């Protein structure tokens, strides 16, 4: 649930959105490109509510329409993303090779807890970000790399045949790099 | 003429379907002469008899006890009828299905109780995770939806079976 935000965008942010909208005006399906550019521009790679409201006002597209597009495509984020993204495949092949354990161990390792949100959330997807915004853990239905199962994507790099130990090593590497 | 052996069963339902069964006015008198009511809430028999011709089951399957009963009934019945929406779709008993059983019992028997705040365990069968329709447990030969199914429909179906008639026109059916 998102409540209407009273905060306004900074002048710089507004200028960027304006420029993106102008550059795409008249293109069919302009909204998708606008949203993609604006999200990419955000340091936390997401679309804050006030940005969506500003885009709606400037393009005269209904708020509901924009929200519908944003939630239809997995590409768009409504929550700020961490500096590093760990994406665990929950497809059938990866599941049978223990991706649930990987997901649980990465959640424990990053202090995200195992409290299952499934009872409250309507989605079976996982998307969690650590409080310090260093890591985002998410799941995906399939990377199409089933031969490498279980597959984990670390900052857009595919790692195959992952086990708890190699995953822990990946996290340690990220941890070192951040200092 | 040999009388047709009919049984009725009341699982997780409100007994409204049984009320509807009794609500068929004068038709019940002529029907009573042709059938033997061998088991059900309306008669005293304790054990479900062997070789029953027709069994009408009201209510959803909600507990392990219901499952065991239903399986035995299926074995001993030629024609099993799901009577009413609870037996056919789960209906109102299934409205609990998205709530975990322990939370449900806690809410009703502890938080919702004025006194004796304890979840009953003695002499009551444990609930299944969900209340589900009969068809998901045993083969059902005929479904009579409705909440309750109209008395006329029940009467028509039973007398057809008793007279050994095959129904030509489709039965008028309606959920709810």
């Amino acid at each position, binding site marked *: 649930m998102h409540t*209407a935000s009273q905060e306004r965008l900074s002048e710089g942010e507004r200028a960027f959105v304006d420029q993106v909208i102008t550059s795409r005006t008249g293109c069919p399906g302009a909204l998708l490109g606008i949203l993609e550019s604006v999200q990419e521009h955000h340091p936390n790679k997401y679309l804050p509510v006030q940005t969506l409201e500003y885009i709606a006002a400037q393009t005269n597209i209904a708020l*509901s329409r924009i*929200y519908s597009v944003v939630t239809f495509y997995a590409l768009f984020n409504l929550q700020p993303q961490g500096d590093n993204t760990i994406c665990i495949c929950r497809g059938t092949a990866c599941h049978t090779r223990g991706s649930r354990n990987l997901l649980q161990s990465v959640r424990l390792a990053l202090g995200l807890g195992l409290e299952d949100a499934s009872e409250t959330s309507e989605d079976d997807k996982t998307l969690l970000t650590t409080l310090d915004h260093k890591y985002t853990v998410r799941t995906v239905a399939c990377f199409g790399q089933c031969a490498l199962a279980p597959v984990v994507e670390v900052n857009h790099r595919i790692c195959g045949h992952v086990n708890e130990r190699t995953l822990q090593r990946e996290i340690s590497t990220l941890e070192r790099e951040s200092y | 003429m040999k009388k047709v052996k009919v049984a009725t069963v009341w699982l997780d339902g409100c007994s409204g379907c049984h009320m509807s069964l009794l609500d068929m006015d004068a038709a019940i008198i002529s029907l009573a002469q042709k059938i033997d009511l061998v088991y059900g809430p309306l008669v005293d028999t304790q054990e479900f008899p062997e070789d029953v011709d027709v069994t009408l089951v009201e209510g959803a399957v909600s507990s392990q006890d219901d499952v065991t009963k239903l399986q035995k009934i299926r074995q001993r019945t030629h024609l099993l009828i799901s009577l009413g929406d609870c037996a056919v779709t789960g209906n109102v008993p299934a409205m609990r299905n998205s709530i975990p059983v322990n939370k449900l019992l806690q809410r009703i028997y502890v938080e919702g109780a004025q006194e004796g705040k304890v979840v009953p365990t003695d002499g009551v069968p444990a609930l299944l995770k969900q209340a589900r329709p009969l068809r998901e447990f045993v083969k059902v030969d005929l479904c009579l939806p409705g909440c309750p199914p109209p008395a006329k429909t029940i009467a028509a179906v039973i007398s057809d079976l008793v007279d050994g008639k095959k129904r030509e026109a489709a039965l008028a*059916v309606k959920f709810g």
Partner: protein
Amino acid sequence: MPNKKLSIRIDGELISALEGQTILQAAKVNGKYIPTLCDLEGLTPVGACRLCIVEVSGIDRLIPACTTPIQDGMSVTTTSARLTHNRRISLELLFVERNHVCAACVSNGHCELQSLASAMGISTVRFAYNYPKLGVDLSHPRFLLDHNRCILCTRCVRVCADLEGAHVWEMTSRGIHARIMSDLNQRWGDSRSCTNCGKCVQACPTGALAEKGCAVEEMVKRTDNISSLIQRREVQA
């Protein structure tokens, strides 16, 4: 310039219809019945419910009548064993997807989903019920939204966007997680674009959108009002 007249066959009968009409429109004008759920006269057709499927000779797959424009010489079949089989499956899947408890519904007896099931003689469904956990939005002062009863026909979306011009409603998420929502997934009562006109309620084929204060069986929808309003608008335009 008036539209060109085309000749088509519906269930063998030769019918003349106007170019630009859909199969469903041509059928309706000529008194041929095709079952529908997501269609509402005057609204842009979307082909969401798949109940209006028909057979068109020369085409192997089944075609939705509401979104397919007629072509000269087209031969359409509206009733067959194959169509009945597929329509039944579509309808049964609608019943198992959410919690349609007809007995406890404000629209019991006035529901398009329920009456279509009766008309097709559906006494039970072949699939396992999903029994999802879904919410009810009671935040609007006059109306309510019960996701348990929604069939995602998007009539509310279309009537609000096309006729009222407010575009409060849209679909969020996808697949089994798809939901109707207002504005930025806010509570309906908090929506700033809603004009409280109630057209979505009247357009809704089930009890998903209803007036508050209705008891079981009390919610009677006036879809005819919506259609005649659209017609009058078109005459004015």
